[in-house]
């Protein structure tokens, strides 16, 4: 997908299993929304193939749309329309809609049903957007940043609801830039950065990733030049070293005591004073930083 000269999504290849929750994870501008909107038939890809429920989302859009639910990142309602009026309207376009009073109750919209859309809070607008995506009882829902702007309580409630959708056999594709959201909700995570897929897998697969330990080293003063290379030489070929910023580094390698000992010794030899040295299982955040870090260097 290109916008003018800018390539937004390139060579992205991913599959979504029916009845699963898939998270497309990436920083702002990574191409998440473009990917979703291509699946929803808003955009025609300049190259490659997209099939959603076996249909071409652009050429067979009319057949596809009744079967999917779409939550846009923002907007999507008249400014003067009341929340319940809007939900009822979308319901009326479907053959077997959910009961809108109960759905709005479920999403905590009961109190603002008569409030005009422009006066809803950001979180309320998000929840209305989610309700609009679900009311037609779709097989597949695309939700773009479902919890953006929500307070922690509404966020939890939304997570529960998305879990429930999976239990009822609805396929969910969501975008997020929250690692914890992807880790909590998704069966499969696709990490994309600058329009390219950089990793895919279940949260467990991604965080174990063959290497079982992560050491995060933060020092008091900026590292000397060439520090990552020098540390990698000291640690041996099985280890990956990624400099995160001037004072922190991520080291992933075999989980044995010698790695930690070697890092301490290297710090002493290079007159570097560790502020913190932590050892732990990799988090998705580590995976992401490591992967994009490589991309930045390469």
């Amino acid at each position, binding site marked *: 997908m290109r916008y003018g000269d800018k390539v937004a999504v390139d060579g992205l290849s991913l599959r979504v299993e029916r009845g699963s929750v898939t998270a497309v994870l990436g920083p702002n501008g990574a191409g998440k929304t473009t990917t979703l909107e291509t699946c929803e038939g808003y955009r025609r890809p300049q190259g490659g193939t997209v099939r959603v429920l076996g249909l071409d989302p652009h050429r067979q859009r009319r057949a596809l749309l009744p*079967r*999917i639910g779409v939550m846009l990142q923002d907007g999507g309602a*008249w400014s003067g329309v009341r929340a319940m009026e809007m939900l009822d*309207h979308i319901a*009326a376009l479907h053959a*077997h809609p959910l009961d809108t009073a109960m759905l709005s109750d*479920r999403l905590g919209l009961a109190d603002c049903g008569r409030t005009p859309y422009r006066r809803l809070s950001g979180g309320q607008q998000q929840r209305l957007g989610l309700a609009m995506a679900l009311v037609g*009882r779709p097989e597949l829902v695309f939700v773009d940043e479902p919890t953006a702007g929500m307070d922690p309580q509404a966020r939890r409630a939304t997570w529960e609801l998305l879990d429930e959708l999976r239990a009822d056999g609805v396929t969910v594709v969501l975008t997020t830039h929250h690692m914890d959201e992807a880790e909590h909700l998704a069966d499969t995570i696709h990490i994309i950065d600058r329009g390219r897929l950089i990793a895919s897998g279940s949260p467990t697969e991604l965080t174990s990733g063959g290497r079982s330990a992560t050491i995060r080293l933060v020092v008091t003063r900026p590292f000397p030049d060439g520090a990552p290379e020098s540390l990698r030489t000291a640690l041996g070929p099985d280890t990956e070293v990624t400099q995160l910023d001037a004072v922190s580094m991520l080291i992933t390698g075999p989980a044995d005591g010698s790695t930690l000992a070697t890092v301490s010794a290297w710090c002493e030899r290079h007159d570097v004073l560790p502020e913190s040295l932590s050892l732990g299982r990799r988090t998705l955040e580590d995976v992401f930083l490591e992967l994009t870090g490589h991309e930045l260097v390469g």
Partner: protein
Amino acid sequence: MKGTPVSTFAPRPGAAPLHRQVAAQARMEARLMLRNGEQLLLAIVIPVIVLVGGVAGADRLGLDLEGHRAVDVLVPGVLALAVMSTAFTSIAIATGFERRYGVIKRLGASPLPRHGLLLGKVLALLNVVALQLVVLVVVGLALGWQPTLDEPVTTVGSTVLAVAAGTWAFASLGLFVAGVLRAEATLALANLVYLLLMVGGGVVLPTSSYGAASGFLQWLPSAALGDAMRAALVDARLDATAILVLLVWGAVGTLLTARTFTWE
């Protein structure tokens, strides 16, 4: 809306029958139009002011218009103005902001097809226009309006034809403007065009009262609608040329809208 209780999200997708979708869209749009203060101003208040002010002014000056009482000429013109204000200006502005707020985009992901959306808009528009005409006719009668009763069938038939053709012409042009310009630019242009046509477009006053400019004016949709309404309600006549002009504008506007309309 009563539907399946939310004990389950188990998929059961499907589109409502098209006529139900269109009816829902029409109800929604009509309700929003009538709720909006600025649109009501345009739809009812300004035409009433023009009518009352015009009649009072003509009475004071003792003016006749081409041998007819002022009120008899002004009422058809003001009815034409009301059609123009809703079909062109209101539709253009509402659609422009629908695009801005992502409503059109959101509906583009719903089962409602593009022609269903347009059909819903047209039905909403016809309902609002009918409501406007009822109000203005009542005000006109109160001011002493006496439409011609020479040929009631011709008068009613020609009026309906003029309103339908005029609505189509102006609505298609309004949708075209909303499709190619930003919401703010649409707002400005739609109001400007409305004002210019109200004053100089041959809609409220007969084309013939503009002197040398009338030869050009009669090809404008505003003058064509005004002339067709006056022919029907003053002279009990079908102004075929004016109707034809409106139909050509409608065809051009529809073609342009179909070419340019997108969901975003």
